[in-house]
């Protein structure tokens, strides 16, 4: 055994020193520049532009599963050399959190809802752009280009995609008297027959709506308590909270549930899956709703291909196909016109495709000022 020897104590001292150094560095990162402790650092990427040049390459897209088709990804790769790597998330808070952590180095494009979009911008996570420089923007409904809550500093913050009020779907085979109020869900005979998406803020907001609270995403502490009590009372009737709305289709199809909070279009999705007749209603107390779009992450490392996706692939043909597959309306007028030509006018109108202005009358999804109270109330209700 040759070589200079050191004692175990020396070794421990060395490694402990290195360890403390690393821990110290991480502590410093947590306190001074850690991902969740402050807004992302400024990047060397160019300032917000009217348009990024479309280039070939790969980009990362954090989105929902119903924003694209595998065939669409394949076409982008074969025709334009744009390779998309989608990552799915379940709700806005999850996506926001991830973008806050990794920024444009790992995510180039992110989907987001309604008032979350402006929150992304306020937190410095996305950058605005000139909507009209996108070739596909000319296909949008005019009203869609004027949403003031999606504009800042003369730029548009998200490329509009789809919208829907969150309705209540029911199976008329078991729910024989057509309901028109949230109250129907609380009837004891529907024990274990309801499912909702696992989106704590939205669930709490819906509880608020059932109580007739107007600004359901900004409830006061007292209102949150009332909403929590509503959820606790409803819990015996809830079979489960699902991660993706596709599971709602499955549960309605096999008749595990008779009620679900759903997007527009659930009727056909269940029917297409071989399930029973499903109807929907808008509760008289009001509903929450969503409208989503694609946002360019600040400092996106692959903005060229990401921009190329929006510019080349959000075409009327793909959007129309998306509507037929997933049911809820989209903001693309050219796609609506195409559907009319293809003989789907009735279906498109039934699902509000021709009424994008309806989003202005919905209680739109967004982050709350009392997030901790919302989450604690939701968790407490689950634990009861």
């Amino acid at each position: 055994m040759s070589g200079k020897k050191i004692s175990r104590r020396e070794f421990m001292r060395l490694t402990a020193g290195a360890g403390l150094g690393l821990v110290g560095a991480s502590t410093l990162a947590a306190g001074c520049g850690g991902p969740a402790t402050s807004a992302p650092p400024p990047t060397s990427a160019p300032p917000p532009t009217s348009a990024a040049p479309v280039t070939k390459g790969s980009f990362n897209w954090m989105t929902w599963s119903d924003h694209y088709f595998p065939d669409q990804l394949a076409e982008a790769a074969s025709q334009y050399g744009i390779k998309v790597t989608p990552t799915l998330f379940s709700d806005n808070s999850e996506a926001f959190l991830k973008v806050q952590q990794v920024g444009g180095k790992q995510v180039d494009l992110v989907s987001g809802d309604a008032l979350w979009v402006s929150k992304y911008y306020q937190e410095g996570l996305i950058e605005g752009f000139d909507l009209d420089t996108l070739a596909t923007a000319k296909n949008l409904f005019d009203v869609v280009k004027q949403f003031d809550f999606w504009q800042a500093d003369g730029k548009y913050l998200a490329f509009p995609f789809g919208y829907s009020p969150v309705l209540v779907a029911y199976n008329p085979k078991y729910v024989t008297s057509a309901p028109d109020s949230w109250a129907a869900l609380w009837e004891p005979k529907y024990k274990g027959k309801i499912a909702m998406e696992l989106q704590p803020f939205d669930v709490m907001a819906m509880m608020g709506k059932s109580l007739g609270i107007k600004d359901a995403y900004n409830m006061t502490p007292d209102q949150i308590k009332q909403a929590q009590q509503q959820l606790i009372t409803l819990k015996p009737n809830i079979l489960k909270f699902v991660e993706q709305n596709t599971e709602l289709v499955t549960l309605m199809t096999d008749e595990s549930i008779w009620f679900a909070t759903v997007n527009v279009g659930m009727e056909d999705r269940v029917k297409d899956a071989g399930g029973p007749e499903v109807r929907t209603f808008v509760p008289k107390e009001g509903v929450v709703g969503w409208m989503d779009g694609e946002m360019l992450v600040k400092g996106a490392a692959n903005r060229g291909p990401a921009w190329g996706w929006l510019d080349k692939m959000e075409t009327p043909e793909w959007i129309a196909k998306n509507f037929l597959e997933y049911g809820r309306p989209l903001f693309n007028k050219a796609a609506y016109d195409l559907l009319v030509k293809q003989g789907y006018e009735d279906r498109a109108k039934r699902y509000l495709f021709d009424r994008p202005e309806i989003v202005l009358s919905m209680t739109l999804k967004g982050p709350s000022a009392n997030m901790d109270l919302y989450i604690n109330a939701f968790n407490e209700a689950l634990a009861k």
Partner: protein
Amino acid sequence: MGGLAIYPGLAGCDGDMTLNATDATTVLGEIQPGGETPGDIVRGAEEMAGARPSRKVLLGFVPISVLLVGFFLAPLMVMVLYSLWTMEGFNVVPHWTLVNYVRFFTAGMYTAILLKTAAISLLVTILALLFGYPFAYFLVRYVNKKWQILLLVLVIIPFWTSYLLRVYAWMGILGRKGVINQFLMVIGLVRQPLEFLLYNNFSVTLVFLYLYLPFAIITLYASLEKFDFNQINAAMDLGATPWRAFVEIMLPQTKQGVITAFLFIFIPMLGEYITPKLVGGTDGTMMANLIVNLFRGFQFPAGSAVALSIAVLITLILIVFRRYLRVEELY
């Protein structure tokens, strides 16, 4: 290294209870080829153990030290700090407070769900031991070596597929239109699908049992394989009932395997998230589900405090059972 020749004899003491004092004297008193007595060798080993390791040897520990510090200790420290700070809007701010821990221990919901999580974990662990022990016993005692290997491979085959897929498969088995309900309806045993099979504590327990049973079997197999079954025969020859022979002879000697299996199952289950989410329904909520909700809701300090409190609980369990955690002796 002729001195190593003493080890087979010593190993015999461990596994072969028929070794007598004469044998031991013969083995221990044997002069080794190098002229060293076993006593010399033992003393040499003790000296080596006390020697200062060379820099070269210590360098070998640097990668694992960096890994542990960088990927375990540092993130843990971040969690500790977060748990002592507060949230303002979407940002964690370094305002020192214990409120996150106070809330964890005073808000009834966390202790209630923690107790429920522990209860489910305990139930599954006990069931896995109850099913796993007889299986491992049967395997070791009555199946020849070639078939033992095949059966063990069958036990671990589920690990070749994704955890998520296995849980989804159970949804297909237990669901309203699942295999069990379809079968029962086809044979006319039921007219309506059985609702209690899925989305409740029953399905959570069942799927956990399926997921963790292999851990129990493999650990108990390793322990039972070293057991000398002649002792059971001897005990029964002396009048012991099979149950007494099991309780007083076999169980004490395989206790280490039982406790290791217990820890291998119970501890990971405390942090389970996916299974309760997929097959649990609202009744099957476990601790990790609440923690995820906290992080999703941007409550990093509260989430960190709850997660760390669970980690402390697990550490306490490990401290209590530390003397049984000699895994190297088990295998």
